[in-house]
């Protein structure tokens, strides 16, 4: 039982990270109907920017909460630039092209970003000393002590705060309204005087900033990154987006949590070598049996 609770805590932490990445997939899919294959690599770049800023601020000796806040903002800012540029270079010229073109372009972009970081930062893994240590212990009298580290609490709370801001942005502001309008009918939205290109760019910027926060959490949580982390994390986050119903924002978060839980439970109880197989199998099973996910709208094909 204690072991189960421990896995639950770990799963929720991991799920928060996946959920934040999944939002980027689901928003882009909702608005332009393509799978942004390079999103996982945007997450990886966010992790690298966070790592670099942690090292720089680590030398200055500023208090920890200020470092965390600064790194968060810096990572969001610089990674948003990447998201914006990728959209402008690789996806915008392809609007209205045949269906697979943006996907292939995204694939190319993903290869470019991965190898670019490999060249610029080296292929070796980058370890970082843990910044936030310690934690709360529960069930001290039983055989298995459940530990909830402060880092896990930080990750979950940060995710909740960001989700709150993000939900407000989408449901209450003009920007969110424009975005939802673009999802429904891009031509009509343009006719009503909304700058569609700008709205799409902002979608990419928001998605990339959330992914960069996930990247920062990844650096803190695992303490080691390399240029290849984007691939697996990207696929899992995409699975999360599909599981929750692609195009649905609460669905992405829910899907993220589920994938996080499935992965930790699988590695806790079944086998740790095959934990990635679990994520991929879930993806295949979900797509076959509920192609619309839990909270997605059914997709009607029109002639």
């Amino acid at each position, binding site marked *: 039982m204690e072991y189960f609770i421990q896995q639950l805590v770990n799963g929720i932490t991991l799920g928060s990270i996946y959920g934040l990445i999944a939002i980027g997939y689901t928003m882009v899919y909702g608005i332009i109907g393509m799978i942004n294959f390079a999103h996982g690599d945007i997450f990886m770049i966010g992790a690298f920017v966070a790592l670099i800023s942690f090292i*720089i601020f680590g030398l200055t000796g500023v208090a920890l909460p200020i470092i965390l806040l600064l790194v968060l903002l810096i990572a969001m800012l610089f990674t948003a630039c990447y998201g914006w540029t990728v959209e402008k270079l690789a996806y915008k010229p392809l609007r209205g092209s045949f269906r697979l073109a943006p996907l292939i372009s995204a694939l190319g972009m993903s290869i470019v970003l991965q190898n670019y970081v490999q060249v610029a930062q080296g292929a070796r893994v980058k370890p970082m000393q843990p910044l936030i240590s310690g934690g709360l212990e529960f069930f001290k009298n039983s055989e298995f002590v459940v530990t909830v580290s402060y880092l896990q609490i930080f990750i979950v709370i940060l995710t909740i705060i960001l989700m709150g801001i993000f939900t407000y942005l989408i449901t209450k502001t003009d920007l969110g309204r424009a975005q939802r309008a673009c999802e429904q009918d891009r031509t009509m939205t343009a006719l009503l005087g909304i700058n569609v290109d700008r709205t799409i760019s902002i979608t990419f910027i928001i998605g990339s900033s959330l992914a960069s926060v996930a990247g920062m959490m990844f650096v803190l949580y695992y303490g080691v990154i390399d240029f290849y982390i984007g691939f697996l994390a990207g696929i899992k986050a995409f699975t999360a987006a599909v599981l929750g119903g692609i195009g649905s924002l609460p669905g992405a978060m829910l899907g993220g949590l589920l994938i996080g839980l499935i992965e930790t439970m699988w590695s806790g109880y079944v086998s740790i070598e095959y934990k990635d*197989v679990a994520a991929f199998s879930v993806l295949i099973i979900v797509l076959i049996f509920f192609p619309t996910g839990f909270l997605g709208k059914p997709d009607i094909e029109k002639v």
Partner: protein
Amino acid sequence: MEKKDIIQSFKDSLFTGFIALALFGPIVGLRTASKGEGLFITPQWGVVFVLVGLCILGRFLINLNSARTTEFTIFSKLASKFSAITEDKAKHFAITAILFAVVFPFLPFTDRYFMDVAIMILTYIMLGWGLNIVVGLAGLLDLGYVAFYAVGAYSYALIATTFGWSFWICLPLAGLFAAFFGILLGFPVLRLRGDYLAIVTLGFGEIIRIILINWYEVTNGPDGITGIPRPSFFGLPFKRSPDEGETSFHLFFNLEYSTMHRIIFLYYLILVLALITNYFTLKIRKLPVGRAWEALREDEIACKSLGVNPTNTKLTAFAIGAMFGGFAGSFFATRQAFISPESFTFIESAIIVAIVVLGGMGSQTGVVLASIFLIGITEMFRDLEQYRMIAFGGAMVLIMVFKPKGILANRKPTILMHGDKK
């Protein structure tokens, strides 16, 4: 050009430079390196300034070019002329290319290195042609093609090392196994739409690789399988000193022993396998099933209403594509004599997809040109190994942006109802 325009494009370029600084600043400018304990930063501002400068200049030139009243059309003209020539003279081109391929091993400048590269290019051509059935004809984007390549290679290696059967028995078996896996994967997933299918096939490719890494008892894990038997020339092995009661190739034909014999044999083997793939594809395109593939690619709903069963039709494409992937896999295994899961990563799938897409989906000649171009270029720039994948991914993006249909766009249906209308 107006003065206002110049100022405008100047501002625009400066903005580009600003963005480029934000992009390259942290990632390129601050290189992390581990020294002893922990990471340290080595600044590399020189590189950043060069990159930012290039971006500003490039943006300015693009602006200048787009402000011109006369379009700079020479490239698009050349490209369309090129594809017109290759289309008109397709037959001549094909025959010349095949003749060249046949005499290639005996040309005076051909050495061991050239042969190795040629074998590699031909392997990719064969894989490209196999995948072309799935992507080009049936319009299903398969990002996990390397899984079938891996299944072919491993089934060949396992059968050959366990039972000691010859290459010619193992090859069809490996193809069958791969086709079986194609059906196994295809059956549940082929109802999915284009991009979902792409991701699921990618997941399948990764599952196969993870299983290959972790299933020690059978696949020997990350260490791979060694000692895979080399192919023999219809029972005549390529050995310097054959075993008791055996004749080897050079003794039988009274030749001086040379390792090139085996290489040349491998070269012809892959050439024949690739040509079989090509011939098969060209023929099957004219059969009902081939036409159904092309029809499905163009409009699935129309096909359904005309009574074409999409799942079965796609499944045949998937299985046949997988089978050729399996053949190529067993060739790879016998050539290398050693295989490990490292050879079957996602990037291999991406390369094969890139070959098909860049060549122009559905174009057989395009696959050849794209393979020669991509593999040849990466071989030529071997010293710049780490940059070649950037160039590779960049080429994928650029071709999609400027020529979304590929180098040789060939989406014409193979057969038209009332002949070729021109």
